[in-house]
């Protein structure tokens, strides 16, 4: 299991001889003269759920874009399940959920879920298990949208649209799910509900999740560990172990343990 001196390691609930989901070694990103991310070293094991917090502009989103081959590394290296990021992208090892659902407004919910099966077909042979054993219908059921298959995006609420986006992200059976403030634009009740759903999906599929948020309670409620980034330049400040047992319930947020870690993170965030 242990692989030498890697600074931050997040152990998941799967384990085994497989290479870790994400390994970052001294990764740096520059935007012009500005250093956006500096010396990020991180290992995320398969099956882990890590949440990422930090002051705005610290490079939380850039970190996810680095992992997903949207932003190139200027220094250091990143592997995903032992592969280069580009290979991992072509193999559809990961998928991405944005803050905006990013659905095609002319396609029904079910056709939006099918989109990944229709594009990038040139590289389909690189994906051994290209299609999930879950059909688009099953996936909409998994996210609680059974019966709304033929609804167009404008007929769905913001929370429902985001659930369609999650179903779409799962269609190619990725092993890593990258989520960039996916519930940031939703109201609190919808967000709580989707937080519970995402934990259920994580448990049922055994997928690895990296989840960027700006909400401390959300970060604690979801993650096994919280990665705190500091800004100027973006660096790992601390990897905080949440240590609360799963399954987690919303009522947990009232417990002294939850408040203690929340206070700790809030103080940490103020000094970042």
């Amino acid at each position, binding site marked *: 299991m242990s692989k030498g001196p890697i600074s931050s390691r997040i152990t998941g609930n799967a384990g085994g001889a497989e290479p870790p989901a994400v390994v970052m070694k001294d990764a740096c990103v520059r935007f012009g003269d500005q250093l956006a991310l500096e010396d990020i070293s991180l290992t995320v094991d398969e099956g882990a759920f890590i949440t990422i917090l930090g002051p705005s502009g610290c490079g939380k989103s850039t970190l996810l874009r680095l992992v997903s081959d949207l932003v190139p590394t200027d220094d250091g290296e990143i592997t995903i399940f032992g592969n280069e990021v580009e290979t991992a992208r072509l193999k559809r090892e990961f998928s991405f959920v944005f803050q905006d659902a990013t659905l095609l*407004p002319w396609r029904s919910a079910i056709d939006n879920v099918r989109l990944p099966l229709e594009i990038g077909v040139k590289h389909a042979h690189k994906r051994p298990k290209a299609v999930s054993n879950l059909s688009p219908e099953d996936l909409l059921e998994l996210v609680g949208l059974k019966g709304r298959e033929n609804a167009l995006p404008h007929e769905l609420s913001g929370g429902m649209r985001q659930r369609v986006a999650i179903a779409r992200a799962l269609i190619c059976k990725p092993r890593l799910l990258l989520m960039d403030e996916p519930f940031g634009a939703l109201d609190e009740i919808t967000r709580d509900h989707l937080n519970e759903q995402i934990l259920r999906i994580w448990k049922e599929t055994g997928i690895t999740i990296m989840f960027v948020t700006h909400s401390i309670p959300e970060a604690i409620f979801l993650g096994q560990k919280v990665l705190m980034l500091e800004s100027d330049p973006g660096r790992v400040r601390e990897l905080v172990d949440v240590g609360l047992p799963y399954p987690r319930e919303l009522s947990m947020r009232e417990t002294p343990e939850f408040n203690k870690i929340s206070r700790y993170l809030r103080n940490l965030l103020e000094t970042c």
Partner: protein
Amino acid sequence: MNIDKNDTSSKVAKNNSVIAIIFANSWLPILAVIMIFVIWELVILIFGVPEYIAPTPSAVLETLIEERTLLFHNFLPTFFESVAGFFVGNLFAVVLAIAFVHNKMFEKAFFPIAVFVNTIPILAIAPILVLMFGNGISAKVIIAALICFFPTLVNMVRGLESVSPEMIELGRILSATKSEFFWKIRIQSSLPFLFSALKIASTTCVVGAIVGEWIGADVGLGSLIIEATYNFRSPLLYATVIVSSGLAVILFVSVTIAERLIVRWKPEHIS
């Protein structure tokens, strides 16, 4: 199921209420139009205005019915020129917009020329085109095409570029090729923009065809307008104007119906 039933029944109710609203909203303008016609008729009768200066609405209506064969024979060429110009101009604009979006160098080189062509008043360029292409139908089609071209070019470029940055990132994550992204995402995203341009073009192409006929033609609504004016046949002139405007309405409504059928979704960016 219950929810579905409620949805459809509420939709029916909504449709009914929409019709009711249209009626409720339109009786006032209809009444206003009738009043204007009545006043117009009375003013002409009371003040004894000669017919060649301003005909009464009833005389115009009479001409519309009596001269329907003449009007229809002149309507057809103008209709054909407008529609042909509409298709040529918009097709050319769409193709050029696609080229612009795919090649920024090309856009930089040719967009200023497109702007320049657009700044030339159509009335100034029409005689040149008639000289070049003769008295036949082609000059009118080209003038109608030219007048449609620019608004569609600008709107189509905007439409093709209306894809959100996140959608572009999604395409990259899914390893979409340029052509997959274009056909599955860009083209559809541009449709609401395209249709708002086509609605403009559907009325301006008629203007183009008529202007072309003014310069030189033996047939068509434009030439009938000139002929009726020179012969002081004012009721015929007014009737021709009404038919011309009817042609524009037909084209506008056709485009609107096509839009309703093709774009059934609500775009996120415009509205």
